């Protein structure tokens, strides 16, 4: 486990956004998403402005557009739901290319697509620029209850244990000549899922008792002072403040 706890969405770069303390980034993304969601759905210019803000933030974080676009496909099931809305919606209907579409459904589809995409892009930027450890540290500094950060800390470490133990058990099966194809692999997995759970638990329990005997009190020691400077707060506040200005300007126009 020496490789640190980089998660699959983390992009190891050196940038202004990567250097910001995690707590200010979490707050900035939260406020930005709230502003996007409360914006009325027919303020199309405001959404263009929000999209521009994400592009600027991605450029500052040196996250490539292709990387973001590929990961944003996590949203696809929701987009599929959105495509169905113009056909299933009620109320006034318009005809387009011979299809009868509901106006409310069209607005609804746009609403889900625009707000969903902007939210996913903002979260992806946070994930790309923050390691799992930093994120937990950030939540801790935002006064998140200790129980949460404790469960989350163990969870992130146990995910590695589970994956490693599953791999070991699979190699053990293969080396005993068990090599089924396709769906028949599921049977071995289903039978061994309980064993996997127990093995992972007993490994984790040993580690936990070792941690307790070395003075673990339910909280990992913070390495540095860690408070954010005023300049850092100001830098990250730029995103939600700019979004709020765009939103207010669009509504008042």
């Amino acid at each position, binding site marked *: 486990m020496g490789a640190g706890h980089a*998660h699959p*969405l983390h992009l190891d770069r050196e940038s202004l956004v990567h250097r910001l303390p995690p707590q200010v980034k979490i707050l900035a*993304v939260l406020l930005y*998403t*709230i502003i*996007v*969601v*409360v914006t009325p759905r027919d303020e199309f210019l405001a959404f263009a402005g929000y999209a521009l803000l994400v592009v600027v933030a991605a450029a500052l974080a040196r996250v490539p557009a292709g990387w973001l676009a590929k*990961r*944003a496909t*996590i*949203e696809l*099931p*929701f987009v*599929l*739901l959105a495509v*169905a*809305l113009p056909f*299933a*919606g*009620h*109320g006034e209907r318009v005809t387009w290319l011979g299809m009868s579409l509901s106006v*409310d459904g069209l*607005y*609804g*589809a746009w*609403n*889900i697509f625009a707000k*969903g995409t*902007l*939210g996913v892009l903002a*979260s*992806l930027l*946070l*994930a790309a620029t*923050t390691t799992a450890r930093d*994120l937990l540290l950030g939540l801790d500094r935002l006064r998140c209850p200790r*129980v949460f950060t*404790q*469960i*989350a800390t*163990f*969870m*992130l470490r*146990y*995910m590695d244990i*589970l994956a490693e133990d599953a791999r070991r058990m699979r190699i053990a099966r293969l080396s005993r000549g068990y090599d089924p194809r396709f769906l028949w692999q599921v049977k071995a997995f289903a039978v061994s*899922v*309980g*064993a996997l*759970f*127990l093995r*992972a*638990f007993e490994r*984790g*329990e*040993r*580690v*936990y*008792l070792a941690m307790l005997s070395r003075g673990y009190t339910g909280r990992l020691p913070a390495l540095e002072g860690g408070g954010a400077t005023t300049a850092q707060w100001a830098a990250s506040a730029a995103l939600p403040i700019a979004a709020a200005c765009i939103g207010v300007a669009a509504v008042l126009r």
Partner: protein
Amino acid sequence: MHIANGIVNAQVSAVFAVMAVVALALCVARGRADLDDRLAPMAGLVAAFIFAVQMLNFQVLPGVSGHLLGGTLAVMLVGPWVGALCVSTVLIIQCLLFADGGLTALGLNITNMAVIGTAAGYLLVAGLLRVLPKTPTGLAVTGFIASVIGVVIASQGFVLQYWLGGTTDLSMPTIAGTMAGVHTLIGVGEGLITATTVATVARVRPDLVFALRRFRTRPGSTAGVTPAMRSAT
């Protein structure tokens, strides 16, 4: 069953966010007492396990993605309070690190999956264990039934939220029927995983099954000592 940003309107999202915060505050207060030497690593593992099974999104119908919830498994292994905290930890980390589920819909998601799903699972488990035998098989049957029903009840939480504040007018019976149908199938998958996991744990380490705690008739006060510590002495 993750809800994205913008599917349910801001007012209803805010109301459910407040409800989720209140419910979780109660869980933190009650769960802190439960979280001893044995339960802390177990809570972490249960959360990791739920995280892993939630990565399998079975697409049952086009446009409706579903996945296992894990609430019943959490209830049986770490109890209702810590169980709800485990599921919500998973949801928060998924939202922040994996962009899964909208940040403003977090209150909705926590209410459905962590609060309703776990509460339904807990009531069913507590009720079923009064009549079923407290053996590994009895626990497996309990886990299976509680999972199927718990998942379907949790899915109706989304129906309620959409009825209160859905951003597009859709026919409610269709949504309710689709969600219930899809989640019955998911519930069967979840029931099988819960049943095998709990039965194995109950067979090898019955001390780890929270659902059996009340029925334990162990002489002496070895409650706070884990087997690993006992074997070390």
